[in-house]
């Protein structure tokens, strides 16, 4: 069984999620290789070896400098075909998801996503997929090779094996359409001030606040509880609150003692960033909102009524 793990990197570091998947794959007992694509990235190969890759394929090319998916699909498709690779695994990210899906189309290869585990049962690979907002666990399989798998963010921790991998260089032949997108700008905010990752109480707001001004009452409640403010991607994207406060798959991973969700639906990408909170309280006017499935206390009601009143009550109690 030949397995390849796509190793994503950012600012000169292999990403933890990819290394976790690499460790998982190596743990299944077959030699696993890793692939690193970028410009000036050969130095990362040694790290890949340390975390379980027996062979590390590296394509170093200026056309792979920007983290765009399609040129990477060319590299992966080429390697899979040349080496007869049977399984390609990815850790969920914006970039990896796009690559995995496009590679599935390019190779007519089955892709299973939202995987939380992978097992070998009598020599057959079976993926464990958490589906329908975590309400069901599905055993999924592949009916042909190559098999593609995309793991949910952060399900495995990297394991250092100490071994050194063999480096193999790859020359990528790019398809014309793969070079038609161009990265103009990457604005990567430097965060200042205390990170919400360290806060013991987080009061988070979503689109149910109705308008950017709604964050006023969220900030007041956070202040009364001695906590920090979090936000969903929907409101961060809309410019209501800064990116540094975003909780979820593409934001921060938080696990405070208390998480108060105000006007947040509880989409899976938000949930994965806050489900480790010790106590979750949710206020949402829709009784069917998914957040109620995992909130310790859910109140079906209007944030505009409840949040200011709760702030007053907390203040009155502590004064």
């Amino acid at each position, binding site marked *: 069984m030949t397995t390849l793990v796509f190793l994503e990197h950012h600012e000169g570091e292999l990403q933890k999620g990819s290394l976790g998947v690499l460790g998982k794959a190596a743990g299944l007992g077959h030699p696993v290789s890793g692939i690193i694509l970028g410009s000036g990235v050969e130095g990362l190969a040694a790290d890949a070896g340390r975390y379980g890759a027996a062979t590390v394929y590296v394509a170093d090319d200026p056309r792979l400098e920007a*983290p*765009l998916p*399609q040129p990477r699909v060319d590299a992966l498709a080429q390697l899979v075909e040349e080496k007869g690779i049977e399984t390609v695994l990815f850790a969920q990210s*914006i970039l990896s*998801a*796009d*690559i*995995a899906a*496009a590679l*599935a*189309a390019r190779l007519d*290869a*089955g*892709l299973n996503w939202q995987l939380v585990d992978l097992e070998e049962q009598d020599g057959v690979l079976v993926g464990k997929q*958490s589906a*329908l*907002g975590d*309400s*069901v*666990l*599905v*055993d*999924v*399989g592949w009916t042909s090779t190559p098999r593609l798998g995309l793991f949910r963010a952060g399900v495995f921790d990297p394991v250092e094996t100490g071994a050194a991998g063999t480096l193999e260089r790859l020359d990528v032949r790019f*398809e014309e359409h793969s070079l*038609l*997108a*161009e*990265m*103009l*700008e*990457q*604005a990567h*905010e430097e965060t200042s001030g205390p990170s919400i990752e360290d806060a013991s109480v987080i009061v988070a707001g979503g689109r149910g606040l109705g308008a950017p001004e709604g964050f006023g009452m969220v900030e007041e409640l956070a202040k009364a509880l001695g906590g920090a403010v979090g936000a969903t*991607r*929907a409101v*961060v*994207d*809309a410019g209501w609150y800064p*990116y540094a406060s975003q909780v979820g798959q*593409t*934001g921060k991973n938080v696990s405070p003692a*208390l998480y108060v969700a105000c006007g947040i639906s509880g989409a899976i990408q938000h949930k994965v960033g806050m489900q480790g909170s010790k*106590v979750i309280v949710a*206020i949402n006017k*829709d009784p069917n909102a998914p957040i*109620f*499935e*995992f909130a*310790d*206390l*859910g*109140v*079906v*009601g209007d944030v505009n009524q*409840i949040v200011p009143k*709760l702030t*007053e009550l907390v203040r009155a*109690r*502590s004064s």
Partner: protein
Amino acid sequence: MKIAVCVKQVPDAAVTKRIDPATKRLDRSGETALNPVDANAVEEALRIRDASGEGEVVVVSLGPEKALDALRKALAMGADRAVLVSDDAAAGSDLVATSYALARALERESADLVLFGQQASDGDGALLWAAVAERLRRPMISQAAELTFENGSVTGKRQTEFGYDVIRASLPAVVAVADSINEPRYPSLKGIMGAKKKPQDVVTLSELGIEPDRAGSAGSRTEVLALSAPPPRGDTRKIEDDGSGAEKILEFLAEKRLVQ
């Protein structure tokens, strides 16, 4: 500009979604709706069409005959035409098979721009556009929260794990939009009445020249083997706010010693 928008009919948000243990497929028998973020994609298409003062918006879907309801909602919002790929043999299509069928339907349209929503609420995939873009051999931008057009190209701003990317792609291109890109309009009564008269084309796989072994289970490369219950959660409690919601929360926080 000619714009195609891929939309999906999904179980309504109020329906508890379940996988039918017999077929191992999603139970689609209950109330349905247009996938919420696909309404954002339709809205964006209408705005682009109306800003340029010309062009056409065609909505495209793969699904059972009743998915026409979702397409009609898009027509009522203002889309010009609908194409539904519907065929019993397409049931159970996975990403490989779905992207193939949609790409064949989209090839007939040769749109300048193909829009997608960022994810179907019933699959949590957030993947399909990338497979379709690859089959159409077009550049793509995913998760776009803002779009601008100039000189035959589209520029999208989108969020990643690290901040914001700005990506430019030459047209024709495939773009998936995030739910924050706009506020979808509600169809007007006039729009709803008018939708009935707009062209609604239902096509079979063979009409698109799709070989039977490339659709449905035969054309899929993944399978569902078994279903089981997820690991148990702790206790959850849900109450209605009858005016005492804030007091109830405070009591709960006090009980958990989360307030002094």
